């Protein structure tokens, strides 16, 4: 198929429709407003539901209701709006409801800035809402990858009955890139039926109940352990990552999203200066590919692991867990909408080598 030029946010929306999503609820916020805008026009054309809610809190609870009614459903927002969705995300996890949540991250804390950042990593991977829960979190690095992963995001949400987050920095939402629609569109009619959904008993079965309340400690404990078992299965089966030139490298950069592209540019700079550098890029940041990272870092050639983020250092904690002390781990990053330059990243590597 021929390549087409797409803006990130619009491609995200179109990819969701092509993934069989026919239900979207959202509230405007920069830098992701093109998603609801695109949905408002194209979702009805596809026979689906678009609704602009009164708040992100309402939007995520509409997602809850729609997911409970069996729909393939999505919402999107950016950092401050994602904060408001945390209650609903926790309830969705508790009630085991599928759905896709897109976070096109901007700078924080508070109102921060509308420029791209990655300050919501802890919130996405550690759970910003209450309770012991997890989300599958995809962190694609370009528009093509977002589009390629969207179908899988919905499929995993349905398979595990849990929300999946697309964690993007504003750069990916706002830029334009040539992409290819590789997978055939999914028809909602072909999706597996959800026997647990509240679609009316028709007098033919016992009532279905969507609920996250387990009032007795024993029942709540058992529920938590059941969720834990599910999360273990996700950890065992759904880690995704990519390596670039990591074999025999002296420097391993670890980065997700836009900084992974900067890290590759920095590796190019180092290459010219006679230092072999590679990039380890988690594609899922939960479950985090700890073991794969460990193997890469443990190679004899590796002298230092350098984490690059558009934050003051959040994923670096996971890098330390993965590397587990076998090599020194350092960090370079900028926050609040400032993007580190490849030179700055390369210099951080030189510093890590004691130069």
């Amino acid at each position, binding site marked *: 198929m021929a390549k087409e030029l797409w803006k990130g946010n619009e491609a995200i929306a179109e990819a969701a429709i092509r993934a069989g999503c026919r239900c979207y609820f959202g509230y405007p916020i920069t830098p992701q407003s093109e998603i609801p805008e695109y949905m408002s026009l194209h979702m009805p054309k596809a026979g689906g539901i678009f609704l602009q809610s*009164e708040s992100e809190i309402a939007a995520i*609870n509409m997602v*809850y*209701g729609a997911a*409970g*009614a069996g729909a393939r459903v999505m919402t999107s927002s950016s950092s401050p709006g994602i904060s408001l969705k945390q209650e609903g995300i926790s309830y969705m996890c508790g009630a085991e409801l599928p759905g896709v949540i897109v976070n096109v991250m901007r700078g924080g804390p508070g109102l921060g800035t509308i420029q791209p950042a990655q300050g919501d990593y802890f919130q996405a991977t550690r759970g910003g809402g209450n309770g012991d829960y997890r989300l599958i979190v995809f962190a694609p690095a370009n528009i093509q990858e977002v589009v390629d992963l969207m179908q899988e995001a919905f499929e995993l949400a349905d398979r595990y009955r849990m929300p999946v987050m697309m964690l993007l920095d504003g750069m990916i939402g706002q830029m334009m890139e040539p992409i290819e629609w590789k997978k055939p569109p999914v028809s909602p009619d072909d999706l597996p039926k959800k026997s647990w959904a509240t*679609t*009316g008993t028709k*007098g033919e079965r016992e009532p279905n109940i969507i609920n996250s*309340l387990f009032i007795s400690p024993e029942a709540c404990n058992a529920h938590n352990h059941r969720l834990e078992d599910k999360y273990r299965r996700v950890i065992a089966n759904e880690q995704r990552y990519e390596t670039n030139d990591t074999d025999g490298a002296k420097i391993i950069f670890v980065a997700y999203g836009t900084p992974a592209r900067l890290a590759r540019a920095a590796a190019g700079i180092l290459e010219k200066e006679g230092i072999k550098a590679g990039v380890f890029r988690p594609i899922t940041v939960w479950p985090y590919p700890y073991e794969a990272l460990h193997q890469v870092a443990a190679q004899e050639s590796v002298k230092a692991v350098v984490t690059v983020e558009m934050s003051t250092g959040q994923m670096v904690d996971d890098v330390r867990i993965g590397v587990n002390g076998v090599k020194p781990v350092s960090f370079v990053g900028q926050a609040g909408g400032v993007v580190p330059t490849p030179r700055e990243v390369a210099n951080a590597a030189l510093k890590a080598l004691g130069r």
Partner: protein
Amino acid sequence: MAIVYQRSKGLADIETHYCPGCTHGIIHRLVAETLEELGVLGNTVGVAPVGCSVFAYDYFNCDMQEAAHGRAPAVATGIKRVLPDKVVFTYQGDGDLAAIGTGEITHAAMRGENITTVFVNNAIYGMTGGQMAPTTLVGQRATTAPLGRDKSHAGSPIRIAEMLATIDGAAYIERVTVTSPANVMRAKRAIKKAFELQIEGRGFTLIEVLSTCPTNWGLTPVKALEWLNENMIPVFPLGVYKDITKEA
């Protein structure tokens, strides 16, 4: 022998956890009877709130979803948009609907969301032990207003039926109570009318039911009914506040 009274098919055959004399139980029965009489039990999805009626998902004999505190109208919106042919209702207390969930109920009404809300106003936070609600009367004691609600500090009770009746998307709004057999019959008619209008696709419907909380009011069940009649009705007058079937 002729059966003159039995459990509605709309209610599951289990004991509820409501306190003796609490009128939540009567209101449950009215909703259940309505769904049964309209023949829509198998075609209904209800949404339970957070409050004393949190376990409503176990009591109504139809598909149910349990919403976060105050969010039932948003959850119901998600359900109704996906399943426009189903009957969708929320059952919410006054803390749930008139405090934390004011935004969600107002905008569901604004959109003319074709759902029915049964709003149980007992002028108190029952479940959490009798704290002040936005509907608590001036001077009424609550565990967070130990000397009684002070207007200069905490304002006056909010009148939801009147407020939502100003919204174009609201099709039917009535305030009723269940303090006497006659009032129970009136409440039943109101609830049934709201569901009928939903089935006709007329828009947002809400029935506010003044209800007792003997436990947190510190009154016997009978005294609680009297207190409601004497003190709540003057502040929350009964009646129809919006009826699009009566509009030109």
